[in-house]
């Protein structure tokens, strides 16, 4: 008998930084870790969360961590600013972003926002998205007052400090409002003139991608398996999810859970190149980026031949 | 001065530091309008006694029964000149002289004039506009003296008021103090037997362990007495002999 048989197999370490504190949108990652799907594929995945969503992609670009969760609109800005990052997978394949008003506000169409206060939490492209939505409804940015309410979208809306908030997550803020006894009404941005996009994506360092390609492929494979399992066993998945950290077991997360499940990308590594091309063109037209980058710079499909 | 100055009587004055009684059940009376000089060895408790009479806090156990002859409170009728000059650095010399009026918020042009006159009398008219930190030791003491005289109080407690000035200035200040403090009840601590004999109606020596008060004879002529006065020189010899007595005698 040799010692080598008893020693655990060498795992490849991968550090992943979420976009924000753990919440139901991270379920595939958490469940994959809980169920040992990463180990099965020879990976040792370390999950961290930041307090500022703009930080993780920078750390990826600087080579400090391997993977970060980011947002597709942010990715375009990052690449435009010369960060050597690229999308390698998708966690949530639709926009989560929505413009939310109180259901009792009487606002039935965005054209009614004229003269109203709109709260947002800095995201980088919120202004552009709102401007597009307003234009779609015959208004422009000067017709509303934008207020950055940073930490507190829901409280600002519930307490009627603002008339609408943009940048709210449709799976989360609506549930939050309901818990506080206020019904919310969401305007989905892809229905208001904004090209659709992937909300949550995994980004990696483009310069070192080749060295990790195989590990990342296995990583996404595990995420994909976890996603499928969650959809098949939502209640059991909830148990697994909350077991990761008991403090996750809150009414809000429970309420958000059901709203989140349909949003997960069932094929995390699949790339819809059209979305990236279109959104890049949209941002260029809006003057948010200085030059159009080819899709090959923005995103890769690890399984592409 | 509208009313005659009160006389003071202290009874049962006791002071103990660290279980060592400095004095115990001391008794003394200070007649209305009299000038008493208090002498005694360094550390015998003179300054503390003055503080007790002034009603100031002391760090340790002390007690005193103080009777004022007209039975009215002393507050506002008493001026205290500490052993240190206690000039405040953020007021100019003139304002330090009229500090009482300033602090009580009642300084007016007349006060200013009076302060200037007093400064002139202590020989510091030209320093009126300076900061205290630019004064010499003796000059600071004279400003403190002027401040005490400025109060125009009927009871005046002074703790070694002339210790830092030169011999000649000291004689001049004696004259000034005698003139301005006529009719006040004065208690003054000094280390200079000649000074005591020049100024005092009554000399008390704090002596012994625990200390008691001994009254020493003073010359009979008018104050301030000339140093050459024969009687003064006799008394001086006697006083010095008394001071020389060992503490535990």
């Amino acid at each position: 008998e040799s010692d080598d048989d008893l020693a655990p197999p060498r795992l490849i370490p991968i550090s992943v930084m979420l976009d924000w504190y753990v919440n139901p949108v991270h379920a595939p990652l958490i469940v994959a870790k809980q169920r040992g799907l990463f180990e099965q594929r020879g990976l040792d995945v370390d999950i961290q969360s930041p307090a500022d969503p703009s930080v993780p992609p920078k750390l990826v670009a600087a080579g400090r961590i391997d993977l970060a969760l980011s947002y597709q609109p942010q990715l375009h800005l990052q690449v435009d600013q010369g960060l050597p990052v690229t999308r390698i997978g998708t966690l949530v394949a639709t926009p989560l972003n929505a413009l939310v008003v109180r259901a009792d506000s009487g606002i039935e169409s965005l054209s009614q926002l004229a003269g109203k206060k709109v709260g947002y939490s800095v995201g980088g492209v919120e202004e552009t998205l709102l401007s597009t939505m307003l234009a779609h409804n015959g208004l422009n940015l000067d017709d509303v007052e934008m207020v950055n309410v940073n930490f507190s979208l829901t409280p600002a809306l519930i307490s009627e400090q603002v008339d609408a908030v943009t940048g709210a997550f449709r799976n989360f803020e609506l549930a939050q409002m309901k818990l506080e006894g206020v019904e919310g009404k969401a305007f989905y941005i892809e229905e208001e003139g904004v090209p659709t996009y992937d909300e949550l994506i995994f980004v990696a360092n483009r310069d070192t991608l080749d060295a990790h390609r195989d590990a990342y492929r296995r990583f996404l494979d595990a995420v994909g398996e976890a996603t499928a399992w969650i959809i098949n066993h939502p209640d059991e998945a909830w148990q697994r999810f909350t077991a990761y950290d008991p403090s996750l077991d809150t009414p809000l997360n429970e309420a958000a859970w059901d709203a989140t499940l349909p949003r997960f990308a069932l094929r995390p590594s699949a790339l819809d190149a059209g979305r990236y091309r279109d959104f890049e063109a949209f941002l260029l037209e809006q003057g948010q980026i200085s030059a159009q980058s080819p899709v090959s710079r923005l995103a890769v499909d690890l399984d592409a031949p | 001065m509208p009313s005659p100055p009160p006389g003071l009587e202290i009874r049962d004055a006791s002071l103990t530091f660290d279980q060592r009684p400095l004095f115990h059940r001391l008794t003394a009376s200070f007649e209305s309008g009299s000038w008493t000089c208090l002498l005694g060895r360094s550390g015998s408790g003179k300054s503390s006694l003055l503080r007790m009479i002034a009603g100031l806090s002391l760090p340790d156990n002390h007690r005193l029964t103080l009777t004022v002859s007209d039975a009215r409170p002393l507050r506002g009728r008493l001026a205290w000149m500490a052993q240190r000059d206690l000039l405040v650095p953020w007021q100019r010399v003139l304002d330090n002289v009229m500090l009482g009026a300033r602090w009580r918020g009642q300084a007016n042009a007349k006060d200013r004039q009076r302060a200037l006159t007093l400064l002139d009398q202590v020989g510091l008219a030209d320093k009126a506009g300076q900061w205290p930190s630019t004064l010499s030791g003796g000059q600071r003491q004279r400003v403190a003296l002027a401040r005490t005289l400025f109060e125009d109080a009927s009871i005046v407690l002074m703790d070694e008021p002339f210790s830092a000035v030169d011999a000649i200035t000291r004689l001049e200040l004696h004259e000034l103090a005698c003139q301005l403090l006529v009719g006040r009840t004065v208690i003054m601590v000094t280390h200079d037997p000649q000074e005591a004999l020049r100024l005092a109606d009554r000399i008390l020596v704090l002596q012994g362990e625990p200390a008691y008060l001994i009254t020493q004879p003073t010359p009979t002529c008018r104050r301030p007495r000339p140093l050459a006065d024969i009687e003064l020189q006799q008394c001086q010899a006697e006083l010095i002999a008394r001071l020389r007595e060992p503490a535990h005698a």
Partner: protein
Amino acid sequence: MPERASSAPGPNASLARVGRGLLAAVVLIALWQLTITLADVPRYILPSPLAVARALVDQHQLLAYHASITAIEIVGGLIGGVLLGLATALALARFRPLRRTLLPVLLVSQAIPLFALAPILMLWLGYGLLPKILMAMVIIYFPVASTGYDGLRQTPQGWLDLADTLGVNRRQRLLKVQLPAALPALASGLRMAASAAPIGAVIGEWVGASRGLGFLMLNANARLQIDLMFAALVVLVGFAVLLYFGVDTALRRAMPWQRDAVETPD
């Protein structure tokens, strides 16, 4: 005229102190409840003291775990910040012409919102305890350096002259004359630093952490568990108050000559 006698503070004094401290807690909670009742603040913005108390009890294990992490960061930051601040104050006092050059450089450490530094710190130090301790240090550092320096440069001239004629060299003068003379000023800075230390650690945790009260607060806030967030806040405030009075007491002990004194000025 009244008889005057003073009496030393008895054992009741410290009891009264504790009593007044408790009174503070009562006042605070009353203010808190009053705010809610009078201003009608919704509970997702400011929960009631009772709800928070319940969270404190129910989640005491969770709180204790995160609090212990934060406590380590606080203590580390406090020690590091005080030492560094003291060293800075001494260096500034020793090389006074440098003041105009160095002080602005140090001021910068105060004026930079820490979030701008967060990526740099994480880049260099990762997300362990170290960057949090560093953040707490940065916050603690300046009050100590600033008050310390102010104290050091205000040494009464007389003592400096005395040191001069006693043949004391510049280093000894700094350490044995200026430093003790600056203690009261420095104490002021230390008290302030102590009360700022907890928030320093928490800000460090916001930069990126998976443990600690700051993490817990943001996390709870994001999940709208406002009760839990305020419970964490209560613990944090408790730390600050404890530290302030602890440091205050220690400082009094360290300056025994200030106690039994009827001191006279100038």
